[in-house]
């Protein structure tokens, strides 16, 4: 049975592709792309820059018919990949089957980024349930650690390895979403302020900017920080009805802007849906995902903490 013959609810195909060499990468993905083009299916490739160059060269002229996206830029923050890369492309072609290669996890991902990457992979299954889309996620077995490869079996229902198509018996995306919903690292040198209402928003932004200057955030990113602070605090005040706590500190090459409140974020796809037209609200978390280089969230029945990270230099982005 081909994808096209499946009933709508089963048309979403989400395999992890395990590869160890460039040759294996191209052997699997060049046919995936060219078959799609032959069937006049829209194809997008969103992979790290070096992989993008490799595929572009191998595809030759066919590459011109493919939407090529550098995942290291577009997907720097894994939280924005679903809305601004995957759904943006798929929603633009919603009457036909769409093929996407999405590689959000590579060896250079940091320990801070990885949990958000794994959660992103798990959430793809929720975001695309019932959609007429195939999203292949390549995993480099020669450089990724065992944890990433083991998690790929949990976040993908199918694994492609060479010519083999295997069903994953460990598939359980909710497990990964929950497993990486962990308390975020506490720090002792953070500065903090309590926000009691919208009247404090101006002061909250001023507080964040003043400390960001002190900690070395480049001027060109101050507006991003203002927007992030405003959206995080506004979200907390609006959805919890109580106070929230804003904290700012430096973590390695990043500035962390964190907001903690007493609410519970019970929608795992919050901030990962493209907005409906004519919608004024509901875009706050999506914007934070677009603006920040990384967003981490810990949410329980007793409270929610969101960390938005901004790179202190362009090298760290």
């Amino acid at each position, binding site marked *: 049975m081909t994808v096209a013959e499946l009933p709508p609810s089963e048309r979403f195909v989400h395999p992890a592709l395990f590869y160890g060499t460039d040759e294996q990468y191209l052997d699997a993905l060049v046919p995936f792309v060219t078959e799609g083009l032959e069937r006049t299916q829209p194809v997008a490739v969103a992979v790290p820059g070096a992989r993008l160059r490799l595929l572009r060269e191998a595809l030759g002229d066919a590459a011109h018919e493919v939407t090529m996206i550098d995942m290291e830029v577009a997907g720097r923050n894994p939280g924005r990949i679903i809305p601004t890369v995957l759904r943006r492309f798929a929603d633009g072609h919603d009457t036909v089957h769409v093929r996407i290669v999405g590689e959000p996890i590579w060896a250079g991902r940091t320990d801070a980024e990885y949990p958000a990457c794994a959660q992103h992979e798990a959430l793809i299954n929720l975001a695309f349930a019932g959609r007429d889309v195939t999203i292949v996620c390549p995993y480099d077995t020669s450089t990724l650690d065992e944890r990433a490869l083991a998690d790929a079996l949990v976040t993908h229902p199918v694994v492609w390895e060479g010519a083999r198509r295997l069903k994953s018996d460990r598939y359980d995306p909710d497990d990964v979403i929950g497993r990486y919903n962990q308390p975020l690292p506490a720090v002792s040198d953070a500065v903090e302020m309590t926000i009691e209402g*919208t*009247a404090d*928003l*101006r002061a909250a*932004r001023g507080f964040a900017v003043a400390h960001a200057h002190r900690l070395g955030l480049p001027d*060109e990113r*101050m*507006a*991003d920080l*203002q*927007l992030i602070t*405003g*959206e995080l605090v*506004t979200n907390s005040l609006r959805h919890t009805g109580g106070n929230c706590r804003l904290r700012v500190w430096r973590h390695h090459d990043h500035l962390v802007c964190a907001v903690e409140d007493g609410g519970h974020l019970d929608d795992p796809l919050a901030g990962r849906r493209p907005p409906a037209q*004519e*919608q*004024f*609200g509901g*875009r*706050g978390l999506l*914007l934070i995902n*677009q*603006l920040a280089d990384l967003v981490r969230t810990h949410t329980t029945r007793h409270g929610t903490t969101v960390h938005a990270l901004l790179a202190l230099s362009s090298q760290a982005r």
Partner: protein
Amino acid sequence: MVRRSGLAENTHGLGAHDHACWRYEEAREFHAHVREFLSDGLARGYRVWYTASGDVTALAGDLRGIDGIDEALASGAAQVSSLDTQYPVGAPIDPAAQVRAYAEATQEALAAGFTGLRVAADCTPLVGTPEQLDAFARYEHLVDHYMTSSPLSGMCGYASDAVDEQAFGQVACMHPNTNSPSPGFRLYAAGDDGTALGGETDLVPGELFSLALVRAGLRPRDGRIVLEAGGLEFLDHNSLLRLAGHAADRDALLVLRTSWPGAARLVDLLDLTNVRVEAAS
């Protein structure tokens, strides 16, 4: 023209085209600011005018303490009138008619040899019902446009025990200056029939911002709605979407002239095709 705009800490030093919205708790405190504002006006050669609810004799008493007030009242350099006879009690005002009345009074002052007209008004009784509030907010913006081209300056007082913060915000945002940190944004006249947006937009609910856009009568000229936003300090995405929607409903391009870099960033992230950000002049 670039007008003075922002948070006003006192009523001293305001110029010929200034327009301040004043929220007060104690009448005594408001009267002190009225005296400061009008005393300054007399020194600048304006005719000054004080209007509030109550008996004119009592109102004249509120001005005691201004140097030479008796002579000014006697000569007509200072005038006092009661809102109770000047306005229809409990009914909404006619914004355009009210502006015409102040335009005539300004011309009369100029004809009488004064350099302008300065009005201090306690507007509290004029915004008691939603209809009054709506009409008065429209009037505040309309008269602000008149002020940019004529030497009319004004100070509009609102008592906090009668006009709640939400209602106050609806009129305050139509002034270039206010003593209250809320509502945070200001939609006011920029001269040449232009409109300016200043301050921060996310301190009040977005509905208030939309209401202000409609009440300010923001309409396209040559297919564009231009906002002089040199004084814009922060624009949240909700307000930007409301602005873009306001322009789209009128088949217009929104031109936002601001030096705040977040505006262009938001326009890009929100994929707004009918908004253009230009450098503030």
